[in-house]
């Protein structure tokens, strides 16, 4: 007995087999973001001040730089996944939806790259 719907049989299109990828990636990134997010908030709160020197010293400390280099792509990926779901839920027009999802993806790739590059440049001592 087949569990396929009549519509599925007629269109002849099976499962894409990557249906759970988005869901799974969202869970994995969310689990990683629990310790990473808590670390960032507590680390920023325990800085003596927000002066330029303090901030540069914080970002360039090897341990902080490594954690930031993990946090930035994971946060941006999680954000991209979430915003995409919202767009898919609320933008009915196919063309508009595709355009917005693509723009979101590009914006998060840009943010990820720019953020990681800034951290690396400071941590490797090539600051301004």
């Amino acid at each position: 007995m087949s569990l396929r719907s009549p519509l599925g049989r007629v269109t002849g299109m099976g499962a894409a087999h990557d249906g759970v990828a988005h869901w799974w990636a969202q869970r994995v990134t969310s689990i990683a973001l629990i310790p990473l997010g808590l670390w960032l908030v507590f680390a920023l709160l325990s800085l003596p001040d927000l002066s330029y020197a303090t901030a540069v010293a914080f970002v360039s400390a090897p341990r902080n730089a490594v954690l930031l280099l993990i946090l930035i792509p994971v946060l941006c990926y999680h954000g991209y996944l979430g915003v995409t779901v919202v767009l898919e839920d609320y933008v009915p027009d196919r063309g508009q939806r595709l355009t917005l999802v693509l723009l979101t993806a590009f914006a998060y790739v840009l943010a990820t790259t720019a953020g990681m590059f800034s951290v690396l440049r400071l941590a490797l001592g090539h600051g301004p």
Partner: protein
Amino acid sequence: MPTPRPLSPHLQIYRLTLTMVVSGVHRLSGLALSAGAFVAVLWLIALGRGPAAYGDLVRALRSAPGLLIVAALIVSFWFHLSSGIRHLIWDTGHALERREARRGAALVVLAALLGSALTLVVVAHRMWGGA
């Protein structure tokens, strides 16, 4: 044009419940934090560009609208964190019964209020209190 089909009842038909509000705020706080990621990256870029650019950004964040954004991000962080943990518990198949769902929603609000209040107090103390 899609064929006109009967619509499911709209949101305003139902009595507002805490679980509904928490569900909606989870999504809203997620959107706020998704925008906040760009603020964090801007902070790093300004840091990379030098003291002048960094000073400009910190001044902007210390203005009234800037502080409002920072406060909104702090509240969103604690809410999305506690509500997200609740979602992860649901994913294991636990706490889905009505009683547990209601209690979970109340716990999320409580944890978010507590975390936000403590963080905001520390931030305010750093900005205006002592030295």
